[in-house]
C-alpha cells in the first residue's frame, strides 16, 4: 500500500532542495546569458564547508549553514568577477563561457579533492526522526522545507518590493531599458551571482547531510537543478518555484511507479533528465511565459 502522504512529503523535500539549488542558477543564467556548469562546484563547496565546520572544527551545525552560505557566496562573486566577466570582456561568446565554466569547475573540484580527499564521506550526524501521523520525518527534512519556504517569501518580497529585485526583473526582460533607467547593472549582477551561489552552497549542504559528500556531489545534483531551471524558464524565480515542486512530485511519484513496474529506482534520476529533454524540445522557454511576471 502506497503511503501517499509520505510521497507528498518527500516531494516537498525534493522540491525544496531543488528550489534552493536552482534559484541562483536561473537568475545568473538569465542575467549573464549562459549556463554556468561550475555551479555544481558552488554546491559541493557548501557541503564541504559544512563538513569542515561540524566534523573538523567541531562546531554546531547551525554554523555550518552560515559557513556554507558565506563560502559559496564569496566563491560565486570571485567566479563572476575573476573568470566570467573577465572572459566576457575579452570577447568570449556563449560557448567559450560554457567551456570556461567547465574549466573553472575542474579547478574548484580538484582543489576540494586535494584538501578533503576524494573518497566519499558523511557528516556523521544522527538526525532525530519521528512520526507525525502517517509521515516519517526528520528534523533535517523539516529544516530544509522551512528554509525553502523562508527563501520563497524573501525572494518574493525582494523581487516585488525592493529596488534590487525590480532591477533583476528589469534586466532580465529588457536590458537596454534597464541600462537607460540608471540601474547599476554591474552591482546587481555581482549581488545575484554571490547570492545565488550562496544559496547553492546551502543546497549542497542539505544534500550532503541527507546523502553523503564527495567532490562529485555537485555533479550528482546539477542535472536535476538544470531541469528545474529550464522547466521553470531561465531567469524566472516564480518559474523555478513551480518547476522545483513539479519535478519533486514527478520524481517521487515516479519512484512509486518504477517500483510498481518492477524497474530499478536508479531511474529516478532519469525522470528529471527526461523532463529536461522534453522541455527543451517542446517548449524551450519553459513555464515562465505562463506567469506574467518574471
Amino acid at each position, binding site marked *: 500500500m502506497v503511503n501517499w502522504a509520505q510521497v507528498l512529503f518527500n516531494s516537498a523535500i525534493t522540491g525544496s532542495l531543488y528550489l534552493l539549488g536552482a534559484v541562483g542558477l536561473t537568475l545568473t543564467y538569465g542575467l549573464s546569458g549562459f549556463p554556468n556548469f561550475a555551479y555544481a562546484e558552488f554546491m559541493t563547496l557548501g557541503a564541504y564547508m559544512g563538513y569542515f565546520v561540524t566534523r573538523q572544527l567541531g562546531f554546531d551545525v547551525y554554523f555550518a549553514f552560515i559557513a556554507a552560505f558565506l563560502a559559496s557566496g564569496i566563491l560565486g562573486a570571485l567566479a563572476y568577477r575573476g573568470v566570467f566577466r573577465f572572459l566576457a570582456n575579452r570577447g*568570449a561568446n556563449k560557448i567559450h563561457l560554457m567551456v570556461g565554466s567547465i574549466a573553472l569547475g575542474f579547478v574548484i573540484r580538484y582543489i576540494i579533492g586535494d584538501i578533503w580527499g576524494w573518497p566519499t564521506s558523511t557528516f556523521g550526524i544522527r538526525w532525530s526522526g519521528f512520526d507525525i501521523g502517517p509521515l516519517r520525518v526528520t528534523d533535517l527534512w523539516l529544516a530544509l522545507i522551512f528554509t525553502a519556504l523562508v527563501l520563497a517569501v524573501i525572494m518574493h518580497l525582494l523581487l516585488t518590493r525592493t529596488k534590487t529585485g525590480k532591477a533583476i526583473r528589469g534586466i532580465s526582460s529588457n536590458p537596454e531599458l534597464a541600462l537607460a533607467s540608471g540601474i547599476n547593472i554591474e552591482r546587481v549582477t555581482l549581488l545575484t551571482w554571490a547570492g545565488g551561489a550562496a544559496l547553492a552552497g546551502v543546497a549542497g549542504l542539505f544534500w550532503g547531510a541527507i546523502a553523503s559528500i564527495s567532490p562529485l556531489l555537485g555533479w550528482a545534483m546539477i542535472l536535476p537543478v538544470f531541469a528545474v531551471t529550464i522547466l521553470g524558464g531561465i531567469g524566472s524565480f516564480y518559474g523555478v518555484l513551480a518547476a522545483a515542486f513539479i519535478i519533486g512530485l514527478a520524481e517521487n511519484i515516479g519512484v512509486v511507479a518504477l517500483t510498481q513496474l518492477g524497474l530499478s529506482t536508479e531511474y529516478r534520476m532519469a525522470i528529471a533528465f527526461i523532463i529536461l529533454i522534453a522541455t*527543451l524540445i517542446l517548449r524551450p522557454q519553459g513555464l515562465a511565459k505562463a506567469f506574467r511576471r518574471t
Partner: protein
Amino acid sequence: MNLGLVVYSLDIIVFIGIFAIVALSLNLEYGFTGLGNFGKVAFFLAGAYTYAILMERTGIPFYLALIIAMLVSAGIGFLVSLPALRLREDYLAIVTLAIGEVLRLVVKTEDSIAHGVWGITVPPAIHWSGMSVLEMRMVNIGLVYFCLILCFIFFQLMTGSPYGRVLRAVREDEVAAEALGKNRVKYKAQVFMLGSALAGLGGGLYAQYMQYINPYMFLPMVTFTVWIMVIVGGPANNWGVLLGAALVILFERGARIIKDYLILPIDPINLQYILFGVLVIFLLAYRPQGLIKERQLETKAIEGVQKWKNRSSE
C-alpha cells in the same frame, strides 16, 4: 632503458590516438560547423558498449564489430539530431549533456545489457598466445593509428572542399547560408551523424584496448576533456586538434610519472587538473583560436586565384 617507462609511453601513444579520433569528430561538429555538442561521451559510450556486447555474444570479426559500433553511434546521432539541432547553442549543450547521462544511466542500471556496474570484459582485437605487454601495445598502436590516419585524411578532404566551405558558412551565419540555397538541417544532421560515428569508432577501439569497460568510465568528464583538446589545439584546424589531443593526454599522464620523481605539497594529479583548468581559462581569454589557428580554405581553384594575384601584383 626502463621497460616500465617504455610500456607506459606506448600506452600514452595509444590513448592519444584514440582520443585524437574523438577530438577530430568534435572538431568537425564544433570547429567547422559550430555545433556545441556537450554529449560526446554518449557516442563514445555507444561505440564502446556496442563493440563489447558484440564481441562478448557473437563470434564476428573485430573489424565488423567496429563498423557496427560506428553505425549504432551514427544511428543514435541521427535520432538526437532530429529534435536537438534546431536548438540554440546553450540549449543544445544542455540537451546533449543530458542525453549522455541518460544513456549512461540505462547502461549502468540494466544489467541485462552489459552487466551494469560490474562492467564487461572485452577481448582484444588482435591477439596471439604468448603475446607480451610490449607487443600488445605495438599492435594497438598499429590498429589505432591506422584508423586515425584514415579518419584524418577523410576529415582533411572533407573540410578542405566546397562541402567544408558550406559547413563554415553554416557556422558563421546559418540563416544567410540557408538564403543562399544550403539546407542547413541536412548539413548539420550529416555532420552530427558522422561525428557520432567517429566517436563510436573511438569508443570501440577504447573498449578493446582497455579490455574492460564499466559505466564509470563514461562520465561527462570525458566530453569535457575532448572539448579542451579542441579548444587548446585549435578549433577548425585538424592538425591543431591532433596537437591538442597529444598535449592534454601528456598533461594528464605526465603527472603520474612526476609523482614518482618529485615530492610536492599538492598531489600532482590534483595539481594537474587545477593547472589545466586555469590554462584553459587563459587560452579562452587570450588565444581562443587555439595553438594552431584555423586556416583559410584552399582548393585548387583558390590556389589558382592566389597565383594569379601574386603574378599581377608584380
